[in-house]
């Protein structure tokens, strides 16, 4: 057990801090969420700045254009950028954290050369086409069909909860290529160009009133066979790399952010007198413990993944990510309820930025596997209980 940094790690941290100190003040303000093209431009410019400074694809393997840094260094990167208030990965999220790593792990040399550099440079934006109206937590139920016709797949169906679809160049798409195969078999991973004929994007308004998600309708869209990553009908396994990634370091920055929010809540409560309410104060104290522990659990999971990677394992966190997500998603919802307690009736003001966060937080126990499903995963895969179904 060790929590101190190596010399190399500390040097990395200090270099990053210096660069952030110099770079961040020069950035323009991030455009509002209602102006997606401007957001895309902002997010891509930030990614380009990271690229130029040598921070792009930090955790990607070096033969994929990354710096081959271990998860710990990646964690330091996420921690420091969040602490410094740097921009979020934003529109580059899917490319850097889902599609990119999938292509790096499963793509051919030509596919890697075609798609990875533009992701790292912030030139091309990816979105994710996994969820469907009938396949939410149950990806095995997905129905979007792809039929091979010459050198292309012809794709018909629709996708839901596709974020940044309106500004994306590519979509990592799961399609069913063998309808007779049982459950998870018969699914294939395709890179869909978003400007292909037959692709229609319709904004999907969330309960927060925002439209960062969309529905994507696919009507006889032709996708070249060369855009397939992995073998036909092997898309489920290919995707698992991505999904497992989602449960790894993905929330590290957010945990740091929640700890900052908690500090601000305490100050706000002291300023408006609510600090005298012991119920609220002690709730904030308990959340302090929870988020401190969630940060340590992130480090733990990352150190396990790092070890696994160095000893020949996959480097991909498994069900321990479910343990983290179960508590994190609820703790973050509790954080917003505590914030409402600090604000009192002022919490009804939707003009404050935090209200959008509060509303978004309602999805945390649902998105990327509902808490109900995560508990099954923990019970069966970690605790070894018999399968429920």
């Amino acid at each position: 057990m060790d929590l101190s940094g190596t010399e190399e790690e500390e040097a990395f941290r200090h270099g990053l801090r210096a660069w952030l100190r110099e770079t961040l003040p020069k950035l323009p303000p991030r455009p509002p969420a209602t102006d997606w093209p401007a957001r895309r431009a902002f997010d891509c410019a930030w990614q380009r700045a990271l690229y130029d400074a040598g921070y792009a694809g930090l955790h990607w393997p070096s033969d994929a254009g990354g710096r081959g840094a271990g998860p710990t260094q990646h964690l330091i990167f996420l921690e420091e950028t969040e602490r410094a208030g740097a921009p979020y990965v934003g529109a580059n999220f899917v490319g850097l954290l889902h599609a990119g790593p999938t292509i790096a792990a499963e793509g051919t040399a030509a596919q890697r050369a075609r798609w990875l550099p533009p992701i790292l440079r912030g030139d091309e934006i990816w979105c994710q086409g996994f969820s469907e109206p009938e396949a939410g937590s149950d990806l095995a139920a997905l129905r979007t069909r792809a039929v091979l016709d010459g050198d292309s797949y012809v794709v018909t169906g629709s996708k839901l909860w596709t974020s940044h679809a309106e500004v994306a160049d590519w979509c990592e798409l799961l399609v069913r290529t063998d309808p007779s195969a049982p459950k998870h078999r018969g699914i294939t991973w395709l890179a869909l160009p978003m400007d292909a004929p037959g692709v229609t994007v319709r904004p999907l308004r969330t309960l927060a009133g925002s439209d960062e998600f969309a529905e994507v309708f696919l009507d006889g869209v032709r996708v070249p066979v060369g855009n397939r990553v992995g073998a036909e009908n092997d898309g489920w396994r290919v995707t698992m790399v991505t999904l497992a990634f989602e449960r790894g370091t993905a929330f590290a920055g957010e945990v740091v952010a929640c700890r900052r929010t908690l500090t601000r809540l305490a100050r706000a409560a002291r300023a408006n007198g609510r600090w005298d309410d012991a119920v609220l104060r002690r709730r904030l104290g308990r959340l302090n413990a929870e988020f401190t522990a969630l940060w340590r659990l992130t480090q733990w999971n990352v150190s396990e993944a790092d070890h696994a990677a160095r000893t020949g394992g996959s480097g991909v966190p498994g069900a321990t990510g479910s343990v983290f997500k179960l508590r994190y998603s609820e703790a973050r919802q509790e954080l917003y309820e505590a914030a409402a307690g600090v604000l009192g009736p002022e919490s009804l003001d939707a003009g404050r930025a935090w209200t959008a966060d509060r509303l978004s937080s309602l999805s945390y126990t649902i998105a990327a596997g509902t808490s109900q499903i995560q508990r099954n995963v923990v019970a069966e895969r970690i605790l070894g209980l018999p399968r429920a179904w």
Partner: protein
Amino acid sequence: MTVDFRLGDDQRALQAGMRTLLAARYPREKLRAAVDAPPALDGAQGAPEAHGAADPGPDRKVWRALGEAGFFALRLAEKDGGSGLGLPEAVLLFEEAGRALLPGPLAATHLAAGLVPGAADGTRIVTALDGPGVAEHLTSSDAVLLLTSDTARLLPMEAGAGPRALRARPFRSVDPLTPLHRVDPPPPVCPGVIDTSADAARLRREAALLTAAQQLGSARGAITLAVSHARRRTQFGRPVGAFQAVQHLCAQMLVRTDLARASVYAASLTEDPAEIAAAKLLADSAAIRNARDCLQVHSGLGFTWEADIHLHLKRAWVRAFQWQSTEESEEFLANELLMDAAEENAPDVWWGTEGGENVLA
């Protein structure tokens, strides 16, 4: 790569050694024999004196075996007969003790190694009193560590003299293996009390952390009990562990325990007071709630005296009041939020109604 929660080889060996020792010296049969011995349960139903006499105290053979294995001297320097190890290693051993439900003032004696002759080798048992309140194993201890927020004093005693020396009254403890006394505020001047130069605040923090480690061990022990029952027991024609409701109880046990474990281990490395408070808070909750959920998974079969679940629950209740209560931890952690200087002048765009930037987007 340095941020690493995995145990080193030496730590694994220590942990395995403690498990082996406990399996040999304090197997379940010994635990159950102690629990089922009538005096330990019924002592205080008679007169207080009778109770005092009936308290069998921790098993001195086990205590000495722990001493010989270096449990108490673990963190003393090698020149002082210790192993020169630190809190991370101590936490691992206390976790095993908690899992095995080993009774006795383990944390107090561990802290007294180097202060009380014989504590390090397990020949003397040392209990503690943290301010006025409740002390465990007072009758059977050879010395009492008297702590306040800024003083650490010692009261050596003849065996059995503790209650008289401290004006303490026994009561029937809810935990059959942890005899308890109510103690009046100890007088500022008390015959026989020795001042020590020990850092009282540090001792209290370490005691809280070592107690948290025992709670963690108990929480993990409850998971083992629950999972093994859920696999074995059938109802409605299938193992109860195949019911989603039971699966979810077990999953939540693991979630809160993994959080507590990360917190306890991290606190043992950083020794940060806030992390220690977090560790105690989360480990207390994990131990109590896991015992409750374990009982629910066992249904009626867990409600018997013969099942060990109630011992975990009762011990967890006792420990939750020791060293740092839930209330104290929460208040400490709340106030710690106000200390975060980095946020002193942070812009408050999140709360404000102006501007589109969403700092948590």
